[in-house]
């Protein structure tokens, strides 16, 4: 009799447990989905070079239920300045960060400020292997592809074979770079130089000032040592190069560059630049969010690197269907 009583009490307790669990699950399901918030910190956030990147971020945020906060920033003067913004965002309750390091960061101030488990670097310029996940193009490959396009005028496919390019004369190449102390830029330059040396082209000079010069500086450089081809490895330098072409179309050598801003797309469209190597920044932004979402979900410490593809844009393929989608992701 007593045993039956205990069994009944046990049964009632089990039923209560089922009711409690089901109610909890129901409330959890019926509640609004939990959105996490991620802050994106890039240098000069209003620049049009971030349009595609930002679109990718927003698409990723939509897919992964993440609120993307694109922090308004000016041009960072130092890593400390960017680290301060990172700290502020963390204080404001950001669940994760997507950061584009503003430049060389030897002191470690920036990297120390990063919350490693919930941070992804969208890398355009960093001096060493970061301790957090990175999403970046294969800089060496991109430099090599740009160099190939510069000396051959042919699309550099991913399946290109190494070695000298057989068609066309050996040409004098002037290279414009960003800050070569940064690892990505150094890799990009190395890729370009290796290809150019293999192809037999002559690198007449390599120009990488600390700050973005104007077209006159480039003019001086060319006056000093003329080049048949100018190869720019950075978006801002590609603009400078195009500005120079506009100003002195007659004297301007053949221009090839790396970039992704709308201004440089226009430069291609208008014919000032012959070819432009464009990393798929939409893809980059999207994968930054996906990568960060995985980390926020699993807190995995495993480093993951998503190589960002790139395309070579010329005036001929600018309005191809796939190219349009990549270059103009935003419908105005």
């Amino acid at each position: 009799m007593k045993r039956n009583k205990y069994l009944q009490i046990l049964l009632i307790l089990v039923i209560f447990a089922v009711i409690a669990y089901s109610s909890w699950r129901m409330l959890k399901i019926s509640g609004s989905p939990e959105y996490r918030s991620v802050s994106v910190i890039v240098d000069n956030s209003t620049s049009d070079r971030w349009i595609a990147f930002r679109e990718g971020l927003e698409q990723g945020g939509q897919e992964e239920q993440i609120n993307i906060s694109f922090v308004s920033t000016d041009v960072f003067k130092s890593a400390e300045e960017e680290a301060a913004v990172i700290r502020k965002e963390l204080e404001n309750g950001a669940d994760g960060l997507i950061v584009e390091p503003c430049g060389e960061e030897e002191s470690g101030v920036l990297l120390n400020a990063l919350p490693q488990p919930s941070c992804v670097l969208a890398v355009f310029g960093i001096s060493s292997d970061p301790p957090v996940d990175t999403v970046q193009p294969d800089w060496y490959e991109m430099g090599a592809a740009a160099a190939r396009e510069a000396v051959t005028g042919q699309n550099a496919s991913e399946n290109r074979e190494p070695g000298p390019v057989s068609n066309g004369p050996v040409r004098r190449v002037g290279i414009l770079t960003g800050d070569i102390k940064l690892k990505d830029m150094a890799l990009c330059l190395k890729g370009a130089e290796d290809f150019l040396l293999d192809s037999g082209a002559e690198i007449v000079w390599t120009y990488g000032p600390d700050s973005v010069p104007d077209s006159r500086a480039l003019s001086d450089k060319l006056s000093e040592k003329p080049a048949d081809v100018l190869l720019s490895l950075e978006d801002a330098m590609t603009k400078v190069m195009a500005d120079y072409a506009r100003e002195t179309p007659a004297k301007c050598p053949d221009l090839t560059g790396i970039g992704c801003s709308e201004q440089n797309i226009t430069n291609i469209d208008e014919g000032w630049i012959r070819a432009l190597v464009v990393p798929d920044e939409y893809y980059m932004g999207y994968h930054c969010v996906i990568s960060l979402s995985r980390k926020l979900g699993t807190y995995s410490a495993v480093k993951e690197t998503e190589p960002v593809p790139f395309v070579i844009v010329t005036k001929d393929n600018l309005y191809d269907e796939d190219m349009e989608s990549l270059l103009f992701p935003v419908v105005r």
Partner: protein
Amino acid sequence: MKPEHKPVSIQIIMSLSFTAVAVILMLFLSFLLYSQFENRSREISREASEQLLSQTVISLEDYLRNMRRVSDSMYYAVIKRKDLADEDLREEMDILYEANKDKLVSIACYYSETGELAGACPISAVKDSVSVKDQTWFIQAEEEVENFHFSLPHVQNLFNDPSQRYNWVISLSRSVDLTRDGAAMRGVLLVDMNYSSIVHLLDQVNTDLTGGYVYLMDADGKLIYHPRKSLIRMGEVKENNLLAVSYGDQSTEEVFEGKRRMVAVKTVGYTGWKLVRVVPMEAFRSGMITTRYLMIILVAVSLLVIILTNRVLSDRITMPLRKLNESVASWEAGNMYPDIYIGGSLEVEHLGRTLASTVEQSRQLMDDIVVEQEEKRKSELEALQSQINPHFLYNTLDSILWMIQGERYDDAVYMIKQLASLFRISLSRGKTIISIGDELKHAQNYVNIQRIRYKNRFEVSFDVDPGMYSCCIVKLVLQPILENAIYYGMEYMDDGEGRIKVCGHREGDNLVLEVTDNGPGMPEEAAARLLTGEEREHAKGSGVGLINVHNRIRLRFGDQYGLSCVAHPDEGMTVRICLPGIPYNKENCSMLEAGRRGQV
């Protein structure tokens, strides 16, 4: 060894049975209800999808109709009426553009033959490098002159925009008749619709957070709008548009990329475009999860209520039975005066009453048995006492002594023989049941002795059916009656006048023995009292009353047997003995000795 089965209480059985039946019924109903609800929800979802598509298609058609009107207005109201050699189209184009500039990017008209621009708005600076004749919208308009042609979305590549903007457009082109210098020629009218209007319209539809979405494709299945178009371009996701284009305007369930989903298609008028609504079944199922948990809660709560209700109900229903059981248990424990519960339902109350009656009867029976045993013991004792009545023995022996002293040796021998026979039968090896023959012999021995003692003052005759001799009788029945007859009847009779008659005959299955004397008798009331135990005065005699004989007969043979007295004052008295006609044999004797008269 077989495990001992421990019985379960009726309340538990009842409670469990009710609960089990209720649970089975409830689960069955819940399953049925859930299935119905799921089907209905799916139907509602399907209807909602189709309704959403219909409304969106109406908006889309409205937008496209407006664009066609712009084209029609431009063609029929402007181009057809103008000679382009003298007049330009700019002013009218500007008006139309301004009126629709939120939906339009540009309006342009080209000569078919040369691809030269006849007029454009808002920008008319044509890119040098662009050949319109190679553009798809131009080729389509030239190939099918009667129709409007809607291109896929693309970035407009016609004009040098000083603002360096790149606009996504859908080109609406048609072949038109132009007039220049009075000569008719063909041209192509282009209305570049703002693609963002369509994107905006469809983005508003795509706010479903459960995973459902809407996309738009042309008649060949090429995507015009898709909320994840860039991801499709990147290869991150895939869409089943090439198969969906073959679906009719209806809802279909398909499996794509291993996932089931519901696809509703609606064709946009005139363009052949198809608007597609995709709802993953997973999203639908996740919507049903809430319902599933709600059902679980309802079932659990109902189960709880049922268990508690069953507990209370079974407690109330079985309470009378349990109380009755407690009464039985108390009785079983030896309480001869248990408090028997009488109540509850009709059946239980009946059981209670029956039990109470049974207990009462049992108690009465026990009392009776006790009394009976006591009576038996007493009567046996009295019978034994009668066997060794010291007065009788003394008187008889005294008579024998006198006979010997009086040298009446033959009489003395006769007397001793009679006494020996009497005692032999009296003892009967301890038996209580003897044959009537023996009983008669015993009676004869007795009266023979008494007659000698009374010097033959009375006569005794025996007239018994010899067929009765071999029937059973309780021993020493006749002797006390004869003793009474002698002491109370013959005492006052003159010599030779006293008469005692012993008769025996059958009456049906019964045997009747009668002892009749012609003594003074007694009043009827006194005779009646002889058998009630009230008349126990033994002035003389062996001290064994008729009542003792009467009781002994009833104890052995039943209440319907025994003595009855018929008294006639001054005329004598008859004592009638009624016995069952039981043959005297070993089995019957054993049964009757053991008190199991019912089995005889």
